[in-house]
């Protein structure tokens, strides 16, 4: 992990000097994580892919503004967060009820084999803010402080969102949790 961090720093330093290939290596390391974060947030594969490209392009253009290369992951996800919410706001005007993303197919019976679908559905039922909190915490493994920087909000707000989302998921996924025993 330490070596990886050092390598990322080197790649960032090279990319800052205009080495596109170094940046491409950096992209290859992070694109899957960014894409999946965006996919689970916006729900459409094409949108997630377009957004991912925008995110990495903006990151490249602004790489010189990144003061501490060690904070690259949080900085990158902050760009991804801004891009995703820009699209969500455009597609879903404020006040409108959160639409369930198409990729999250509704699941009737909650058998273990359908656990993945159930999780997708449960995530899709959360509000954008709550879903994003779970994505950053559970799937991306950020600390509350890092999330607060990514989302530009207090740590207390981050904790509140994560805890609320976890309570909702706990209730929704209870049958799955108990191995489909109903």
């Amino acid at each position, binding site marked *: 992990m330490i070596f990886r961090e050092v390598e990322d720093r080197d790649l960032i330093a090279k990319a800052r000097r*205009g080495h596109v290939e170094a940046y491409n290596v950096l992209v290859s390391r992070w694109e899957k994580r960014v894409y999946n974060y965006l996919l689970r947030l916006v729900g459409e594969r094409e949108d997630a*892919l377009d957004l991912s490209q925008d995110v990495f392009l903006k990151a490249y253009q602004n790489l010189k503004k990144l003061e501490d290369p060690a904070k690259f992951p949080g900085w990158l996800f902050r760009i991804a967060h801004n891009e995703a919410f820009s699209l969500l706001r455009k597609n879903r005007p404020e006040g409108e009820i959160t639409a369930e993303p198409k990729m999250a197919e509704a699941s009737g019976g909650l058998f273990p084999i359908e656990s993945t679908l159930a999780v997708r559905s449960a995530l899709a039922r959360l509000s954008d803010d709550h879903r994003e909190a779970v994505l950053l915490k559970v799937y991306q493994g950020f600390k509350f402080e890092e999330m607060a920087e990514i989302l530009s909000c207090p740590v207390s707000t981050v904790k509140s969102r994560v805890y609320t989302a976890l309570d909702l998921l706990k209730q929704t996924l209870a049958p799955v*949790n108990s191995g489909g025993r109903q």
Partner: protein
Amino acid sequence: MSCATDLKAYALGEVGGREKAVLEDHVRGCQNCREELDRLNLTRAALASLEDEEIPRRISFVSDRVFEPRWWQTIWRSGPVMGFASAVVLAAAILVHGFARPVVPPTNGSDAALSEQALVKQVNELRAERAADLAKFDQQLKATTARLEAQRQADLATFQQASEYYQKQMARIEVASNEAYRQ
């Protein structure tokens, strides 16, 4: 659950150190917290069942002139290249200086004789010029010495006059003083 323990933070890996040990101690002895922690862990396990998808198309950027630094920016930002460039410029300057020096005329046959005569003439001219300069300097030196000597003599005469006047005055004062004493 009535306990004040932050089980969610614990389940999410946000609790460490002594706080973690205290919480684990509490959970071992608290049925409610144990059940709540189990539910949270099961929820996390369910969430973990959702695996990451492969990205449909790899993202990569081609070298674009818009984003590439210009040649002078590349040189300017690179210390070693800048040092090498400086060394090259310095070497070039030395070479140019070497080639730009006045060319010595060819030294063969009658040309050589001519050039020797010219050289002798030039040396003689320089000698004459130097002799004239020396003579001029000598004249100026003599004139200056004479002027200073005249000034010195004039100052000396003035000083002698002043001295004589001073002695006369002193003699008068002495005479006057003696007369006054006698009276």
